[in-house]
Structures are given as C-alpha cells and as structure tokens.
C-alpha cells in the first residue's frame, strides 16, 4: 500500500507522520514507544487525550494492520494512529489570542507531563492545531523523558515561537503574519533584541524574558561557557520550572487579554447598509442554499466576525472562516470561547494567500492545498476583490472555482451599492457596466447557476452555483 509521508515531518529523528488510505499514522522508534507506553500503562495517556491536551491517538496493536504498516515502512516497528484534523492552519494565519492560547496549551501540557517525569522535547507553534476553535497538541512523539527536570530544554524555542512574536506585536506593532512567514523557526534572540530600544529593554515586561536571555546568550556563546554536559546532569526537582512556566502562562494570558481589536472591518456589522429585514432575508436565503448543498466542509471567505460561519456550523458543517482583517478574526475567535462552534478561524488575504514555505517549499503547504470545502461562501466579498484587490471578474471566478470542490454561494453587489461606492470613493469608476447579467455570464463559464434570490430591501442578489 503506498504511503504519503507528510513533508513537514522530518525534523524529529524519532519518527515521521504519513497518510495511508485517508488515515493518518505516525511511525515511532523504540525509545518514543517506550515513553508513550509508560504513560499509557499508568492511564495518563488516555487522560491527556480525554482532556483534549493531545490529539486523539491510538496505539496500533498487534494484528493485520500492524503487519501491513511494518511492510510499508521497513525498519519501523511501532505505529500510532491519530485523528484526522479537518484543516491544518499555521501560526501566520492565527490571531493574537490564538497564538497566546496555543502557547498556554503548550505550557499546560508541559506542566502535566512534568508530573510523570516527562517533558516536551520541542515547543514549536506548528505542533498545535485548532479543532472546533480549541488548541490541541498533534506531535505526540515530542514527549520524552529528560534527565533534567528543573530546566526545560525547549524553553528557548517556546520564547521564540510564542512570547517574542506576541511581545513584538504588543510593543512594536509587528503583525504575526509577516513575522512567522519571514522566520519559520521563530526569530532569534539577537534579532528580537535589535527590535527594542535600550530603554524598552529595561521595561519589566521585557527585562526577564528578552534582555536577560540576550545578555546570558552573549555571555554563554563566548568561549566554551555553554557546556552540553550541563544538560546531562540529572535533576528531578521540577519546582523551578513549574514556577517559571506558571509565570509565563500568566504573561501570555495578559498579553492576549490586553489586546484591543480596532480593525477596519470589525465594526462592519454595525455600519453595513443592511436593514433588519434585508439581513433576515439574506440569512434565510443562505440557510436555504446551505441546506441544498448539505456540505461537510464550508469555507467562509471574508467571514468578518463570523455571523454566517455560525450559520453554516449550525447546519452541521465544519467551517473554515477566513478574513484578511486580523482583528475580525480575533473577535471571531474570542466569540468561540463563549459560544463554541465547529469553526476554525484564519487570517487570510485572498489577494495574497499563504504561500508554501519551508524545506524545499514543501514543509508547510500553501493555503489552497490545505483548504478543503464542498461549499464556499463568498458573501459581501466580490466588491472587495474587484475594487480593493483590482481582480478582473474572470479572475474572481477562477479563484472561487479553485477553492470549492462543488458549490458556491456568491453575493452579487452592484456598483450602485453603498458599500461598493465607499470603496470607489477615490478611484476611477471601472465598473459602470457591471450588472447582475454580466456577473452571471462570467460565472456561467465555470459554474451552473442553480438559483438566484434577490435580497429584499437591498440591491444585492444571492446566487447558488455548482461547479461544472
């Protein structure tokens, strides 16, 4: 049976992840299997799964499947099977609270593992995925049994992956998207140090976690002060590490909670030109189309704070909610904590979607390769693509065609619409001829237009289409 090895799973020599007949498996070496079995025997492994600290994982026990997997992967004896995550997202698509929660989740798992004499051998943000709006650790092979328990070997990586991007965002207003896209493994301490002025480095919020590690890093790198033997010295008192991680947990929480969303579109729901009746009519039509489509996975493009994503989730779909505005996604994610729903929010600019990055440009696939949708919702989006992103109408059609497996719900916004005019304020009017008929003709080349509903009390029209 052919297996598809996951391209991003190559760093940790203790194993690798692969797909086989739509199921996801992890090959692990003897040492890793020993550590995980130790946890399983004491019941702690099932406990971590039940509390959703780690992704649902089963040991592949003796039997036909194990024999087949051993044939597929010569030299490997042990395998785990993981639950398949609907959509993989990456930190450059997360909002501030999502990154902070991913960090807090990593700390919570590390604190739990310390109780059993185990620890995480790495602390990369890519090990965390969001399922139904909640973080989960997917790299189970990252669990090890270290010699030293007072020091966390992955703490430096944790700072680079979680704390530094949040501090740079908080104090220097750097956006997480550019930071992670530019530095796949997180920004090194020297580079972080250069981003802050000397007086900023003396701030209490930065001194212990940026300035001190920077000074100590420079000191340790001089000569032969950094000795690897230090890390091999057994020490089983976890108290110092626990105290430090609890402090770090509080710090991440504070950084996330003190973030104030102020994006352009976050108050869109209040300023959009729909009155109550039109809003209700639009919701009714979208709901009707969703029932007809009956999708398993929905991609809501330009989701804003997720009103229609929730509607799709209530129809039973797994929803991937995308918007270019970070603050809209931040508000959507915060809303999921109070009212959980099967929605995965992502910050995504359709005019410049996340590219494929990393080793051989294969390690982290492009957004289009990860987004799977039976139905795409493109509500109040068309005018943004045409005006703000300067896309031609045929280009918009091609883009939406490439993102849906089957259906598309498109909201046609005429140039006379107030929101369309708002975007056109200082631009040459290139859209005088844009009519519903012209839009339908453009989309009819690649879609079958199944139904259209004019939204009462507005100039807009909803179109339900299927790929041909």
């Amino acid at each position: 049976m052919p297996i598809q090895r996951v391209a991003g799973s190559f760093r940790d020599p203790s194993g690798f992840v692969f797909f086989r007949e739509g199921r996801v498996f992890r090959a692990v070496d003897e040492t890793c299997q020993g550590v995980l079995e130790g946890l399983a025997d004491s019941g702690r492994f099932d406990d971590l799964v039940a509390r959703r600290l780690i992704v649902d994982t089963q040991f592949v026990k003796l039997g036909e499947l194990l024999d087949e997997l051993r044939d597929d992967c010569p030299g490997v004896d042990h395998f785990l099977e993981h639950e398949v995550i609907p959509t993989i997202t990456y930190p450059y698509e997360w909002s501030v609270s999502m990154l902070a929660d991913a960090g807090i989740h990593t700390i919570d798992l590390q604190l739990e593992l310390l109780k059993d004499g185990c620890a995480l051998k790495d602390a990369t943000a890519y090990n965390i995925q969001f399922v139904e709006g909640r973080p989960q650790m997917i790299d189970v092979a990252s669990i090890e049994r270290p010699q030293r328990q007072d020091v966390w070997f992955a703490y430096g990586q944790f700072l680079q992956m979680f704390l530094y991007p949040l501090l740079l965002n908080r104090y220097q207003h750097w956006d997480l998207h550019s930071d992670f896209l530019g530095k796949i493994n997180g920004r090194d301490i020297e580079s972080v140090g250069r981003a802050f002025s000397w007086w900023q480095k003396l701030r209490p919020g930065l001194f212990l976690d940026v300035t001190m590690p920077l000074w100590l890093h420079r000191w340790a790198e001089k000569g032969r002060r950094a000795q690897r033997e230090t890390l091999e010295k057994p020490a089983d008192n976890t108290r110092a590490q626990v105290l430090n991680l609890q402090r770090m947990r509080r710090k991440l929480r504070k950084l996330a909670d003190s973030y104030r969303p102020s994006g352009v579109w976050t108050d869109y729901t209040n300023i959009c030109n729909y009155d109550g009746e039109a809003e209700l009519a639009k919701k009714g039509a979208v709901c009707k189309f969703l029932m007809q489509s009956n999708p398993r996975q929905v991609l809501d493009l330009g989701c804003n704070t997720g009103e229609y994503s929730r509607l799709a989730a209530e129809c039973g779909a797994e929803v991937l909610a995308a918007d270019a505005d970070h603050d809209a996604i931040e508000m959507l994610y915060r809303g999921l904590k109070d009212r959980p729903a099967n929605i995965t929010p992502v910050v995504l600019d359709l005019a410049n979607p996340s590219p494929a990055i990393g080793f051989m440009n294969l390690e982290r696939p492009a957004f289009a390769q990860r987004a799977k949708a039976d139905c795409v919702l493109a509500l109040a989006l068309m005018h943004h693509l045409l005006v703000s992103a300067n896309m031609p109408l045929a280009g918009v059609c091609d883009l939406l065609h490439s993102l849906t497996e089957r259906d598309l719900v498109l909201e046609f916004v005429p140039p006379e619409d107030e929101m369309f005019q708002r975007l056109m304020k200082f631009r040459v009017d290139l859209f005088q001829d844009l009519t519903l008929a012209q839009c339908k003709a453009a989309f009819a080349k690649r879609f079958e237009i199944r139904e259209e509903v004019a939204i009462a009390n507005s100039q807009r029209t909803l179109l339900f289409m299927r790929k041909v």
Partner: protein
Amino acid sequence: MNMLPTLAYIDPMSGAIVLQLIIAGIAGAAAYFRRSIWACVRLLCGKAKSADAAAGDGAQTREN
C-alpha cells in the same frame, strides 16, 4: 525507557538555558535555606513583637 542523555534536535538557545539554571539556583537556594530563613523571620518578628509589647507596656505605664 529513555535513559539516554537529553540531546534534542533543536537549538536550545543558551541564554534561555542559563536563565533557567539561575531561576533553578535561586529556587533551590530558597528551598535549602527555607528553614533558616523562616527561623530568621520568626526571630525578627518575635523580637519586633516583644519590642512592641515592651513599648506598649511602657506607654500604658506612662498613661497610668
């Protein structure tokens, strides 16, 4: 069970390791000297209390 030395495949960032060793050192020292520190605190408090009491008695005496 893994009894091999921890040599992970990631760069540990020496500054972060040294910082943790310092924190561990401070926490260790605090734990080690906890009894003696408490003894000192109690001694000081005790002394302070008895001094207060003595001062209070004195004040009362003066009032009387």
